[in-house]
């Protein structure tokens, strides 16, 4: 589970926000929300591939926290705690969705399975045509390219950090990513061309 490696400073700030919201100041809660949103969203999407459901579950978790603010005690690790709440909420929503489906009945309370990054990228595209293109382009990219894309854009690591992690030089990372971006860019322009063609037709 991708619990955010929150920097030490962020952890302390979260504790301050937590105290604020327990003292009935909703802005403390809002700050935690903004701080964790992207991470929660990532995790949710990788589990259910359904934007709507993920967005709903995140808001539900924070409304619940607000309602229970008087009973809560500050957890040791705030992001961990919220992630667990979020995971429960997601499996509850998933359970609701598949209530009548026997296939899922057995795994209601099991740990949801995370999809790999590539599957997420493809699954996120609502447009069938675009999904197909995405699939095709990702198949053309090398493993190295995909690794860098994942680290740079999904994990939001800087080029230096990627360089430390993979022991490739910043220059190499830059060039590898650049080639990949040009390849990616082609599918988008190709798609706009086909759209144009449909319009003209």
């Amino acid at each position, binding site marked *: 589970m991708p619990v955010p490696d929150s920097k030490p400073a962020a952890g302390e700030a979260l504790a301050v926000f937590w105290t604020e919201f327990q003292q009935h100041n*909703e802005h403390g*809660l*809002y700050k935690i*929300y*903004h701080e964790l*949103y*992207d991470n929660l*969203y*990532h995790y949710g*999407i*990788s589990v259910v591939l359904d934007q709507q459901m993920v*967005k709903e579950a*995140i*808001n539900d978790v*924070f*409304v619940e926290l*607000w*309602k229970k603010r008087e009973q809560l005690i500050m957890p040791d690790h705030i992001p961990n705690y919220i992630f667990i709440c979020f995971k429960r909420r997601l499996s509850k929503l998933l359970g609701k969705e598949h209530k009548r489906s026997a296939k899922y009945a057995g795994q209601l309370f099991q740990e949801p399975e995370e999809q790999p990054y590539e599957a*997420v*990228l493809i699954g*996120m595209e609502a447009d069938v045509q675009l999904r197909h293109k995405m699939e095709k382009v990702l198949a053309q990219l090398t493993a190295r390219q995909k690794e860098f*894309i994942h680290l740079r*854009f*999904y994990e*939001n690591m*800087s*080029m230096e950090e990627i360089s430390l992690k993979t022991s490739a030089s910043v220059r190499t990372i*830059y060039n590898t*990513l*650049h080639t990949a*971006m*040009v390849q*990616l*860019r082609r599918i*988008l322009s190709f798609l706009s061309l086909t759209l144009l063609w449909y319009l003209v037709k």
Partner: protein
Amino acid sequence: MNLQAFMAEDFMLNESFVRYCLQSNDEDVAFWNDWIARNPHKRPETEKAREWVLRLGVRLNASEKQEEFNKLRAMIETDRVHGKRRQNYLPYVAAAAMFAGAIVGAWLWKKQPRTAHSTAAMAYTTYHADSVRKQVILADGSTVILNCNSTLKVPASFNQQERHLILQGEALYDVQKDDKRPFTVTAGQATVQVLGTVFKVRAYLFENNVQVSLLSGKVNVAANNAAAALLPGQKVTTSRGRLIAGTFDAARESDWRSGRLLFKDASLQEIASLLEYWYGVKVHVAPRNYQAIHFNGQFMNKSLPEVIASITYITNLKINISKNELFINQ
């Protein structure tokens, strides 16, 4: 670094640009907003780059995130209202219940999904104007001038299948035409159904009635068992379950709309009624023999305390505000 030669892929690999896309650094956001504004010809490339940064990062864009945050805020505010001020909420629930009971079988019922009042109304954004009026721009582009001491509730579901608002106090609506999404305002026991139009609803609790004035376009008003269609220049007032037709002073409404409060040789009674009309406060005048008052003055979008300060300064009247009521004395 020649930004002019940048293509989408170059922007995507610029770390400052990515921080702008993720809005994680104010300086970068400011820099790129400014740069893009000054180089509009690069906008197609920067937009493409931004879209890809968000897509590869599997992130929501700023406006999607804001939308989610607004939903959360609406839910938490609703919870505050329910949890802390249940009593203030009761009259409103009672009015809604009365209204719901009264219109069974009426045309309105058919037009509104049943869930609109029960579930969707639970999450709403509340706008409140105290001593200065407020302008609210709704998601559909319609605008509302919310008068002083007035509250407007906008359900989170506004502009999805329908456009429904709940008013306490007074507001002027300038409604964008949209035949697919009916626009309705509930105020006390009256409901106004709108068809692209400018109209005003006044429903202060201290006045015990609801007034609907139509400036242009067309509206239908329903209250209890009565219903009426208004033409521009017409006004209806609810009275014991009935609707009484009348007209309104167009010049006064147009002054109100422009925010110009005008006292012309005004007597004590005129001052009292104008303040009551303008600021939505109950005005009490202590019975006694007053010296004759002739007050002149013009105020553009001024708050009630400012206006009172000038009146008391010139006329030597004493005016106290207490709990949304004014007490005039000498």
